[in-house]
Every structure is written in C-alpha cells, then in structure tokens.
C-alpha cells in the first residue's frame, strides 16, 4: 500500500485516497472549435508514462481536496507532492 502525503493533512495510507489520473490536462476552453481528433485526444489519449508521472490524487476520506504528485511508475516511489494549480516541480523531470 502506498503512503501518500496530502499537502494539507500530511502522510496517510493509500486507502484514504482516490486516484485522479494524469495531471495538468487542461480542458479546452472552446470545445466546439476542436475537430474530432483533438477532442478524442483530450478525452481518451494519455501519456501512460513509464517513468516520472504527474498525477492527481484526492484525499477523499480526509480533507476531500485534490492535489498533485510526481511518482515514478517503474518503482511506485513518490518524488513530490504539490497543491493543485501549482506548476509541476523540477524533481525527477
């Protein structure tokens, strides 16, 4: 089980969290102007990184807030935790 550090509450077991998928995906501001290819890439295509992955977590059974983390998907080791809206840290990038 992963130990995850919520930027608001501190280190807690994985059971308190839900996974939110790849981070920093920005919803297009004018979806109607996208063609089908660009829209499907936003909806479905993911980097699926083998290496350092920026991802969202939600402290669902705690403070309820979303935040981001950097995790190496080859080892499951976390490199950084940071609040939503903050830029991706340099660590491991």
């Amino acid at each position, binding site marked *: *089980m*992963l130990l995850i550090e919520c930027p608001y509450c501190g280190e807690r077991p*994985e*059971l308190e*969290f*839900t*996974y939110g*998928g790849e981070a920093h995906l920005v919803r297009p501001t004018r979806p109607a102007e996208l063609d*089908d*290819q660009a829209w*499907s*890439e936003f*909806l*479905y*295509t*993911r*980097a*699926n*990184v*083998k290496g350092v*992955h920026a*991802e969202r977590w939600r402290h669902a059974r705690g403070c309820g807030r979303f935040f981001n983390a950097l*995790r190496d*998907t*080859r*080892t*499951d080791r976390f490199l950084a935790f940071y609040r939503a809206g903050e830029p991706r840290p340099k660590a491991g990038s």
Partner: protein
Amino acid sequence: MSKQSFSGLSLAWRALSGHRSWRAQWRKPQPKAGYDAIIVGGGGHGLGAAYYLAKEHGLSNVAVLEKGWIGGGNTGRNTTVIRSNYLFDESAALYDHALKMWPDLSQTLNYNVMFSPRGVMMLAHTVHDVQVSKRHVHANRCNGVDNEWLEPAEAKAFCPPLNIGTDIRYPVLGAALQRRGGTARHDAVAWGYARAADALGVDIIENCEVTGIRRDARGAVEAVETTRGVIQSRKVGVAAAGHSSHVLGLAGVRLPLESFPLQALVSEPVKPVFPCVVMSNTIHAYISQSDKGELVIGAGTDAYTSYTQRGALHVNMHTLDAICELFPMFRRMRMMRNWGGIVDVTPDRSPIIAKTPVPGLYVNCGWGTGGFKATPGSAHLFAWTIARDEPHPINAPFTIERFRDGHLIDEAAAAAVAH
C-alpha cells in the same frame, strides 16, 4: 528443424532411452539482419500471431522479439479463465471466434493446453445484477453464444461449495452460466505456440528489447532497434500488453491506453473441491481450481497506473473477503503466493487489433484484464491484419480511430474486476 511429435507412443519410445533423447522445444537463434515480419512481444498473442502468419499466410521469415522470456508476462500471470459471454455484437463475434478455437487447439499444436470447458458461472447479487445478467443471457443467445440463467438452487447444484444463504451481506440471487467456458493451462499456450511457430521457421528471440522503431522518408516502418542490434522489416506487429503504449511511443503513436497492475493469488494445493469457474462482478471475486489443486483467485486492479508488476495487499484482501463469504469452507485455506501483471486498459474496455497511422506498424493491445481467453482468436486475426494489411471483418470494429469517431464498444462485461 523437424518437429518432435508428442504422443503416447513417442513418450513410451523415449522412455526406453531414459528420456535423454528429447530435444529443446524451440531453437535459440541469433537475430537475422531482416525479416518479412516482426512481432514485438512473446506472449500468447504474439507467438500465436507468428504461428498463424507462417501457417496460414505463408510468411515463414518471421521473428518474435521478447524482452524477457516467452510467456513471462501476462500470459503466465493470468487466472486462465475462458469465456465469450460479452454483450455487444462486435465483442460476441470476437470472443466467440476465440472460444471456438480452444477445443481443437491441443490437436492443432500437438501440445496439450489442457483446455477444460468446465463452465463459467457469473453471480448476481442485486436486482440490478439480475436484470443485467438476464440481458446478457438474451443478447448472447441472439448472437449464438450459449448462456443460461440459473436460480440460486440451480447455481448451488452446479457448484456445491456456493453459499446461497440469505443472511450474507450480498446474497446470491441467481447466476448466468456459460457451459462452453472454462480454463486452460496458460504456460502451455505460450509454449505450444512457440514450438509450433518454431517448427514452421519462425525465429523466437528472447532477451531482446525493442528500443527504437526506424521509419523511412515516407514515414513507413523499415527497421527496429533492439538490445541485440538493428533488425530490418517492413512489417512490425506490436503485442506488448502493458508496454504497448511504450513501444508504440517509439514510433510517435499515442494510444488511448493506461497500464495498471492486476493481481492474482493461489492457495496451497488441495484435492479436487471446486468444479467450475465462479465470478462475481459486484463483490469482486473470481475463483477456479487448477489441475494441480491450487485455488486460483483473481483480484482487482490497483487504483493507479504502474509498471511495477506488484500491487497493494488490501486489493487481495478485498477479494478474499468475498471468497470467504461465498465459499465458507475456504475460510481456513492458506494462500501460497500472489503476484501482479501490468494490463493495458482502454476507455471502453475493448481491445485494439488494428493498423496504426504508421504504414507497416500494427498493434494488438488494450485487452485489459481479460486477454487470455482470446489468445487463439486474437492471434489469428492479428496475423490476418498484418499479412493482408487490412483487418479481418471480425476485428474491423476494433480500431484506434473508434475513439475519434465515437464508435466505442463499451463492454461492461469485459472483466469481472471492478473498474
């Protein structure tokens, strides 16, 4: 390169010489400078594709490149369940194509894959489950796929260890039974295809990881770079399961895939106690007994993407809670080992067997948590797609472009795991 035939007679004959005359079941060739086609990924789907390329399409100058050892990925890590009771017409056609190939596979390959159509029973625990299960039964029958509805007492008669008491948290309200479903020996499927493909001239090259895909001025595939050198080929088929998006990424192709750990576990071996396969989507358990006597139990995927081939213990515990309630006699059974595999999951839980935007590059991926059952059919259709540069009618709907065009095959029955 003559194949040593396996039979009772050959076993007896070799016994006379103390079994010292058996040869290796396939060669360990050095990679050649080039091939007519290359398959990346030496699991069941890749080895099978190489076999059908040689057997049915006359392409014997074929190599299978495997970064580890053959059958060491998801082919050797799954829970060996075989069924075809999928809801949609496209899925029913695809999975039943595979299911129809299983009964003859041992004869075809001259290798005992131990296919055992002992029946797959999927439990319903809620009113919603009952409605969905009956819908599946009817949809399957319309597509010529056998499936029947059982009341709880009938389910108990088919699988006596099942607890149909009404005092449990999620009582059994009925079950859908596919009698043609069952299990097979997963390792034997990889080994059988490897041996049969090798006998037809296919080079199986282990410890050979693909590190790059070279393209010509037109953008078409011309070679792959590997840890054992550059190998030329104008046709490259990728069947790399959890690593498919990684390998396709080498050619600049992005896929609608995410890779998750999926865990399974086995108990200590015991005498035959469990006659069929039982699955429960709702409380998440599936279980069968191997011929060796171990209970083979499938757990769910972990929540996060990963390539580590391991997962968290609480995922297994969740499954064992359900197993112990449904089958109280297993409460004191000791679990022997657990492991994880990396499964590539598509947004609609249906696979992709298709051409890619790169000419000469083909992909067979996205089988998610349930690819083993489809091995012969998937391999057969992938070989067709590579050899003819166009999909077979059965896999024609399973493209990458379906996500762009909105023709999703949104298959809730894709697995018994929660997702």
